[in-house]
C-alpha cells in the first residue's frame, strides 16, 4: 500500500492561492532576493515510514509536516541546484513498520520513482532496507541512530539522536529539583524501549538518582497498565520514568498513575497529544511533567540559533490542517529536509553521494536546535549522527514549554563511559546488535 502525491497535492488554482496568501503575509519575501520560477525538473524525495498501523504516529505526522515544507519551498521557487530552481515532490510509501514492506518500498522508490533521498523512521524496518542501501548507494535518513553501524555509510541520523537526548531531561531535573533521589522506570520490550532504558539508567546514575528496582519491561501488546503502575509506585518513588514508551502507552500509564494516587515527578521521552492526557487526568496532576519534544509555537524557538524556518507559523499551519495531531515527529522530517536542501544547494547537485559529502564535509551541521556536530563513532561505530543541543520541555499550566536547551556532547564528555556501560549491559552497542 502506498501513498503518492505531488507536493501539497494541490491544484494549480489552490497552489497560486496559497502562494499569494503567503506572499501577502510576508512569510517568504523577507528571506528571498527574488521569487524565481522553478525551471528545472522535479526533485523527488522518498518518504518510507509507517503511515498506517500502530507506529503510524511516528510516520504520518512527519509526512504531513513535509507537505507543508514542500509547499513553502515550492512557493519560494524550489531548490536551487547549480543556478536552476527545482520544485520538490514527496513520494510516500507506507511500510507499515514491516521490514519486508520497507525493502519493497525502498526498491520501488529508487527504481520506479527515481528519488534522490529517502527519509525513514528506521528501527525494525532498517534491516530490511540496508541491503538496498548498500547495493544502490542511496542516501537514507533515520530518526533512530541505533540503526547506525560502521557499514551504514549512506545512512544518517540528522534530526534526533534517540535516545541519547533523554539525558538532558534527567540532568535538568537533577539541577532544578535536587530533592528527587529515587526513580523507577517502565518500558516496552523492543528496539525503541531498550536503548532508551540504558540511556535513562546512565542519566540517573550520573545525576546521583538511585533506581528502586530494575526497569519493568512489558509486552508491546499490553493494554491494561494497572499492574505495571501498581508495581512502579509500590515503594513511593520520587520519579516515575516512562522511557520511550509509545504514546499509546504513555497515556494509559499516566492515567493509571493518576488513578492510583501517585503524586510525584513524571519524566518521559515523549508526551504526544498531552492535551488529551490532561483531559483524562488534570492540569494539576501533569504540572511539571518533563519530556523532550516542544510544541513549535514555543517562544523559545524564536531565538537566532534555531535553524527552522518560522517554527511558530509552521505549528499554526500544521494545526489548522491536522487539528490535534501535532506530535514528536511533525517537524523532524521537515528539519531533515532543511539540512538536505542546504547541502544539495551547496554541492550544486542532488545526487546522494554529493549531498552526503556536502552535508558532513566540515563535521558540523545546522540542526534545528542549533549548530551541531557529526558524531557517534564511540556509540554507533560511525560519525553519522548530528548531535548538539536538545530542549527540555515541561508542562506548565496545561501547556508544554521549553525550559532550557542542554548540550548532549557536554553530558557525554562527562558521562560517556556510564552510557556505554549501560548500553553494553542491554546489548545495545553497535557491535552487539
Amino acid at each position: 500500500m502506498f501513498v503518492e502525491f505531488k507536493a501539497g497535492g494541490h491544484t494549480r488554482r489552490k497552489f497560486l492561492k496559497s502562494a499569494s496568501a503567503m506572499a501577502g503575509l510576508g512569510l517568504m519575501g523577507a528571506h528571498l532576493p527574488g521569487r524565481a520560477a522553478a525551471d528545472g525538473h522535479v526533485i523527488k524525495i522518498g518518504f518510507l515510514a509507517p503511515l498506517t498501523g500502530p507506529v503510524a504516529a511516528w510516520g504520518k505526522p512527519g509526512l504531513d509536516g513535509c507537505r507543508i515544507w514542500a509547499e513553502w519551498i515550492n512557493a519560494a521557487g524550489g531548490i536551487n541546484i547549480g543556478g536552476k530552481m527545482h520544485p520538490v515532490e514527496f513520494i510516500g510509501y507506507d511500510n507499515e513498520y514491516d521490514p519486508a514492506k520497507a525493502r519493497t518500498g525502498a526498491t520501488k522508490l529508487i527504481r520506479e520513482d527515481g528519488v534522490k533521498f529517502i527519509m525513514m523512521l528506521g528501527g525494525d524496518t532498517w534491516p530490511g532496507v540496508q541491503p538496498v542501501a548498500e547495493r544502490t548507494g542511496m542516501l537514507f535518513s533515520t530518526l533512530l541512530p541505533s540503526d547506525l553501524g560502521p557499514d551504514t555509510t549512506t545512512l544518517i541520523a540528522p534530526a534526533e539522536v534517540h535516545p541519547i537526548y533523554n539525558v538532558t531531561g534527567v540532568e535538568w531535573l537533577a539541577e532544578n529539583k535536587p530533592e528527587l533521589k529515587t526513580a523507577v522506570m517502565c518500558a516496552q520490550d523492543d528496539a525503541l524501549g531498550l536503548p532508551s532504558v540504558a540511556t535513562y539508567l546512565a542519566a540517573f546514575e550520573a545525576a546521583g538518582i538511585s533506581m528502586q528496582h530494575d526497569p519493568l519491561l512489558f509486552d508491546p501488546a499490553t493494554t491494561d497498565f494497572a499492574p505495571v503502575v501498581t508495581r512502579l509506585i509500590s515503594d513511593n518513588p520520587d520519579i516515575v520514568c516512562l522511557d520511550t514508551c509509545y504514546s499509546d502507552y504513555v497515556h494509559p500509564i499516566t492515567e493509571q498513575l493518576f488513578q492510583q494516587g501517585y503524586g510525584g515527578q513524571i519524566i518521559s521521552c515523549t508526551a504526544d497529544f498531552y492535551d488529551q492526557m490532561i483531559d483524562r487526568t488534570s492540569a494539576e496532576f501533569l504540572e511539571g511533567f518533563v519530556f523532550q519534544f516542544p510544541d513549535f509555537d514555543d517562544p523559545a524557538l524564536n531565538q537566532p540559533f534555531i535553524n527552522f524556518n518560522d517554527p511558530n507559523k509552521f505549528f499554526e499551519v500544521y494545526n489548522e490542517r491536522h487539528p490535534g495531531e501535532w506530535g514528536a515527529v511533525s517537524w523532524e522530517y521537515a528539519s531533515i529536509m532543511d539540512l538536505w536542501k542546504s547541502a544539495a544547494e551547496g554541492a550544486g547537485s542532488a545526487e546522494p553521494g554529493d549531498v552526503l559529502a556536502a552535508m558532513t564535509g566540515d563535521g558540523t551541521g545546522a540542526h534545528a536546535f542549533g549548530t551541531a556536530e557529526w558524531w557517534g563513532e564511540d556509540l554507533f561505530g560511525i560519525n553519522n549522527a548530528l548531535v548538539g543541543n536538545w530542549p527540555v520541555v515541561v508542562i506548565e499550566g496545561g501547556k508544554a514549554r521549553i525550559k532550557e536547551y542542554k548540550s548532549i556532547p557536554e553530558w557525554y564528555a562527562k558521562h560517556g563511559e556510564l552510557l556505554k556501560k549501560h548500553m553494553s549491559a542491554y546489548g545495545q552497542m553497535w557491535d552487539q546488535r
Partner: protein
Amino acid sequence: MIELLAQTGLNSLYAAAYLSLVAVGLVLIFGVMGVINFAHGELFMLGAYVVVALYSGFGVPYILVAAIGLIFVGCIGILMEFTIFRPLRDSPLGGLVASIGFLLIAQALVSMGFGVRMEHVPPVTQEVIVFSEKVRLPLQRLFVILAAVMFLSLLWIFLRRTRFGWALRASAQDAEAAALQGISIRQTSLIAMFVGAGLAGIAGVLTAPLISVGPHMGHAVIVAAFIVIIVGGIGSLEGAIVASVAYAFIHTIVTTFWDGVIADITGLSLMLLVLIVRPTGLFGTTDRA
C-alpha cells in the same frame, strides 16, 4: 505488602471481568457452530469504536452507547453468520480462514473511517474508591467488573431457563440430534453469533474509556482469549470463566512482581502445561476436544 497484594487483586478482577466476556462469546460461537472465529478480537475493537464514535464524537450518554454497542456488534455477528459462516458451514477450516479475512477488512475499514492513530476516550467518571493510600479502585473499573458479572449471569439464565437457551445447548451438544428434534440449526447459529459477538462488543464498550482504542487492539485480546478457552476446555462456558479468572490473576501477579514479558511467557506455559496434563482443558470433554 498487604496493600500491594490487595491492589493486585483488584487489578486482577478487572482483567478477569472483560476477558471472561470475550472468552465466553468465543466459546459460545465455537460450541454451537463449530468454527473458530479469529475475528472475535475485532468485534471487541468494533465495540470500542462505537464508544469513540458516539460517546466521544457526539456526546451520546454512555449507558445508551453501551446498549447500542451491544446490539450493533451483535448484528455484525449476525452479518458474519449470514455471509461467512453459513456458506462455509461444511468447511470449518474455510470459516476460520474467512474470519481472518473479515479481521483484515474490519481493521482496514476502521483505519479508513477513524484514521490510524489511537483514540483516547474521555473518562466516563474519574471517581475513585479509596480503600487506603495504596489500594484504590476507579469507579469505571468497578463498573466493568459489575457489568461482566451481570451479563454473564444473564447469559446463564438465558441458557438454563429459556427455550432458546435450551436450543443452543442442545445444538452445542449434538447438532444433528437437535435438528432431528425440530431445532433450527440456522436459528441457533444466528442467536449464538448475536450473543457471542454482543459479549465481545460490550467488553469493548466497557473497556474503551480505560485503554487506548485503535484498529489493531483486538490482537492482544484474542491471544489471551484463545489461551483461556484452551485452558478452560474448548466448548466449556464454565471453563472459560474459571480460566479467565485464573489467567487474569496469574498474569497480573506475575506482571506486578516480575514483569509483563515473563507474565506472557507464564500464560503460554500454563496453556502448554494444561495441554500436556489434561488435553481437553480443565472443563472440556473428549467429544469437543
